[in-house]
């Protein structure tokens, strides 16, 4: 199921890609949401910790950007920074968050939240904690509409039912008076999504919306998100630690490692040929990515990590490339020098006009890119038969 995308941006040739840096684009029209060189710091007992360092991305109307990375890579923190919801002790130390060209970070906190309340909504990671246990879901669905748009009690009650219907909660009319703890995990996540949709946002940031759910429910919730996004032509930032989730839904992908972007590309390019060893390792950890295609992977995906070692703490980043202790290609250069995120990568041209120029932060990006059909055998794990061919992987599976 690929939900498409009437192409929210103007045409962008690959020739221009080289001229662009870090998601900065020369497009005449400002992207819907653009994050530029964002850095977030935490003040902790051990000193200042940089949890996000130089994150850039952009989303346009009707498009989906996946932000992928292991736990602790800074996915949630960066989204909170975009929303103006960073906790005490955290601050944005650098960068811009442009909503239709306006830098939200230059606004007061009050105005920042005001803007986001109107146009950018977030689906939080843990729905049970993110919902208020003492208010009915009906109240929480329409709280902002009542307080900020002055909806009457009657209209709000009707709207609450509509919203629950929209996310396909059965018996919506009967359930608006229920409290969050009376819903199952999957239904609760739907309620969370409905709350995010209440103000009809232009951009939706969904922070691991399916992580807490079991596999079949995950697929349903993802499909729902994708459908609503396509229908409303929202920009969707889909945060996940699971690259397998990305394939069916997203247009572009940004891979984060230890607070930094390590690879950025259109999804099909990434799946065809990752340009960073970390992305490649993530891809290998999707069991059936090589055979059944992304969609086949969705239904039965055990959460396993084949990447040896653990991600570093942002308090103690390794010198050079932060990934080098876990990288099988690491050389001396990697240990001493940090690879910049470079966009000068040649990719095969493809029909899908994407706004995303490829970029990778690896000294050996070109080699990784060139060797993309080797690693399946090198991983040492028995693999199902089938050539690891990008074209096959991309075959749409929704008949």
């Amino acid at each position, binding site marked *: 199921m690929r939900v498409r995308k009437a192409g929210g941006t103007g045409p962008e040739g690959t020739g221009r890609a080289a001229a662009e840096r870090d998601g900065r684009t020369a497009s005449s029209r400002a992207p819907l949401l653009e994050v530029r060189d964002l850095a977030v710091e935490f003040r902790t007992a051990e000193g200042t910790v940089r949890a996000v360092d130089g994150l850039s991305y952009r989303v346009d109307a009707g498009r989906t950007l996946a932000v992928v990375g292991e736990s602790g890579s800074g996915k949630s923190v960066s989204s*909170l920074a975009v929303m103006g919801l960073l906790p005490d002790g955290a601050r944005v130390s650098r960068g811009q968050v442009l909503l239709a060209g306006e830098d939200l970070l230059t606004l007061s906190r009050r105005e920042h939240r005001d803007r986001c*309340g109107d146009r950018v909504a977030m689906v939080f990671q843990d729905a049970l904690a993110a919902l208020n*246990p003492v208010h009915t879901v009906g109240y929480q669905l329409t709280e902002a509409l009542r307080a900020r748009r002055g909806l009457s009690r009657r209209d709000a009650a009707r709207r609450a039912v509509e919203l629950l219907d929209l996310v396909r909660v059965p018996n919506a009319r009967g359930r608006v008076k229920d409290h969050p703890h009376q819903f199952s995990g999957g239904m609760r996540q739907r309620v969370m999504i409905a709350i995010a949709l209440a103000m009809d946002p232009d951009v939706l940031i969904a922070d691991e919306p399916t992580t807490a759910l079991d596999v079949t429910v995950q697929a349903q919730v993802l499909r729902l998100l994708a459908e609503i996004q396509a229908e409303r032509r929202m920009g969707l930032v889909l945060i996940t630690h699971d690259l397998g989730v990305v394939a069916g839904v997203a247009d572009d992908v940004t891979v984060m490692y230890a607070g930094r972007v390590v690879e950025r590309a259109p999804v099909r390019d990434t799946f065809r040929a990752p340009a960073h060893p970390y992305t490649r390792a993530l891809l290998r950890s999707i069991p059936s990515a090589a055979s059944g295609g992304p969609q086949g992977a969705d239904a039965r995906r055990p959460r396993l990590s084949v990447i040896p070692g653990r991600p570093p703490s942002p308090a103690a980043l390794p010198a050079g490339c932060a990934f080098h202790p876990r990288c099988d290609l690491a050389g001396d250069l990697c240990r001493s020098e940090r690879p910049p995120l470079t966009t000068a990568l040649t990719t095969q041209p493809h029909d899908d006009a994407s706004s995303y120029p490829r970029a990778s932060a690896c000294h050996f990006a070109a080699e990784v890119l060139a060797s993309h059909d080797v690693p399946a055998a090198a991983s040492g794990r028995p693999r199902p038969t089938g050539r690891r061919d990008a074209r096959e992987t991309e075959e749409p599976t929704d008949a």
Partner: protein
Amino acid sequence: MGRYVTRRVLQAVGTLLLVMFLLHLLTTVAIQLNGNPAQAFFGDKVASPAQLAAVEQRFGLDDPCFDRVGDPCLGPFAERLGQYARGDFGTNLRGREVSDIVAAAAPNTLRLFCVVLITWLTLGMVLGSVAARRRGSAGDHGIRLTSVLIDAFPVFVLLIVYRYVVAVPLHRWAEETFGEDSWPPYWFKPSFDPDHPWATVVVPGILLGLAGSAAFIRLVRAGQLESYQGDHVRTARSKGLAERHVVVHHVVRNSSVPVVTAVGLTFAEALGGAVITEGLMNIYGMGGVLWEAVRNDDVGLVLGIVTLLAAVTVVVMIVVDVAYAVLDPRIRYE
């Protein structure tokens, strides 16, 4: 919800019966071991056996079980329950109906408790909220220090200092400043005045409330701090709601559950405080009456009042439980 309330009420009735029975057993044992309290009726005078017998009969102390150590005296207990059920709570040693005494004394205690409760909640909510909102600031530390100081002073010290050191000059100053017939002099009157029950109960009530408020300040602060850090508050903020709306509907509202529970628990404790306060400030209330009754060996009155206080406590507990269920929907469906 209805079932929840019914269950709580039944539990409460059971608790009350149990309390009454224990009370009965205690007094029975006391009578059996110490001898008949009918003598107390005559004070220091020596009564004839006939007079004693008459008094014993009048107060239901003539049952032979009171002479047998270890006998639970179930007969008189059942009899008393029957009388209570008919609304007959007996008389004190001077023949005054216990219900009349209570009718006169209870309103004053209620007045005292009103003031106490208002003091608790205002101090707790205001100072606790400020401390939580400006956590780590000088204000927060100041409030913490204040609450420690409050805790360090026992109620009776506070009351004695007030009554014997502060009240008299304040009262005189108020009389001179505002005139004898105005309100302020009554506020600072060192003892209770039945003609001005509200005015003379305000300051003792505030002092008693002050003593209990430290716990509330800390409770409100902790509860709100937890709420502030809660994910649901972040969600509320993500909706672009005004900070005041977020604080009222998501921080204060969510931290109200432990506060209400604490009101119930501290209430029982405050009954003890009321005995001291009413005794010291000469307030004619339940505590003062109980104090006198115990000193006079007035068994009938002690039993009647303690039973009533137990009933009030049990009712407060029910109210708290129900409020708890209303405030926290997760409780209702257990």
